[in-house]
């Protein structure tokens, strides 16, 4: 992958890089420690690997110019996830539907043993594709929940909602996810998990 400016139309941070106060090896370690999880989170939001890569790249670019204001090392991970999520939100307009989903009633779907088997049989790209079908307002907390990088408090901080809202959104997100897998199971045998897989979402 060639170095490139992100395609999302976001103004690159000005010069005066944080690298002046952070060594290149230290920055390399920071990237090494977090870029994988950030990419997985970005992929669940952006739905395609190119945009996900851009989001991750932009996040570290912002870190390089603004991250020095963060003195507490324990907050770095949370800061990176928060920045990535904000950049994602900046990249697209929120619709009225997003807020109306907050009042969506609980579904009737209950997890069954067959669903566990169904997910276990799927490949990673198909599981990701199912997750990406979940409405965004529920998908973001659900992705952070599964990635296990952040505590509930940190997830709430990233999404700027109370912890109780995170739990409520997790519940609704899982209901949607189960419905997606259940719908996929209604197709004939031989297509165990026919959710369209995301191009490039597979492990190389």
């Amino acid at each position, binding site marked *: 992958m060639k170095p490139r400016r992100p395609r999302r139309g976001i103004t690159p941070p000005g010069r005066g890089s944080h690298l002046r106060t952070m060594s290149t090896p230290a920055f390399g370690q920071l990237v090494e420690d977090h870029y994988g999880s950030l990419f997985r989170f970005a992929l669940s939001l952006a739905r395609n690997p190119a945009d996900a890569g851009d989001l991750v790249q932009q996040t570290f*670019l912002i870190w390089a110019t603004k991250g020095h204001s963060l003195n507490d090392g324990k907050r770095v991970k949370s800061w990176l996830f928060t920045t990535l999520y904000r950049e994602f939100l900046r990249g697209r307009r929120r619709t009225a539907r997003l807020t109306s989903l907050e009042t969506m009633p609980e579904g009737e779907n209950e997890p069954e043993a067959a*669903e*566990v088997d169904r*997910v276990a049989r799927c490949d*990673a790209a198909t599981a990701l594709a199912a997750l990406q079908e979940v409405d965004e307002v529920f998908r973001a907390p659900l992705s952070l929940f599964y990635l296990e990088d952040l505590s*509930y408090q940190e997830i709430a901080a990233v999404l700027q909602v109370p912890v109780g809202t995170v739990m409520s959104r997790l519940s609704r997100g899982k209901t949607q996810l189960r419905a997606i897998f259940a719908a996929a199971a209604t197709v004939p045998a031989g297509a165990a998990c026919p959710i369209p897989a995301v191009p490039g979402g597979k492990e*190389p």
Partner: protein
Amino acid sequence: MTNEEAKIILGAYRPGGEGSAEAVFGEAMRQAERDPQLGAWFAHSQGLDAAMRGKLRELAPPPGLKESILAQVRGLS
């Protein structure tokens, strides 16, 4: 606490999670131990979570992304 309320709480449970787990999940987990139906729901929910967690961990960033990040930031300094 109703079973529906317990499900919302238990749905957020992660094994080996936060230190405050007892305060947040304790009551709902004890209810799941007492109620076989809720207990079965919780077991299946945990199975589904573990399967999804495992699948998502398999996703790898595209080759060259790390190098691209480092090169771009190096260009700023």
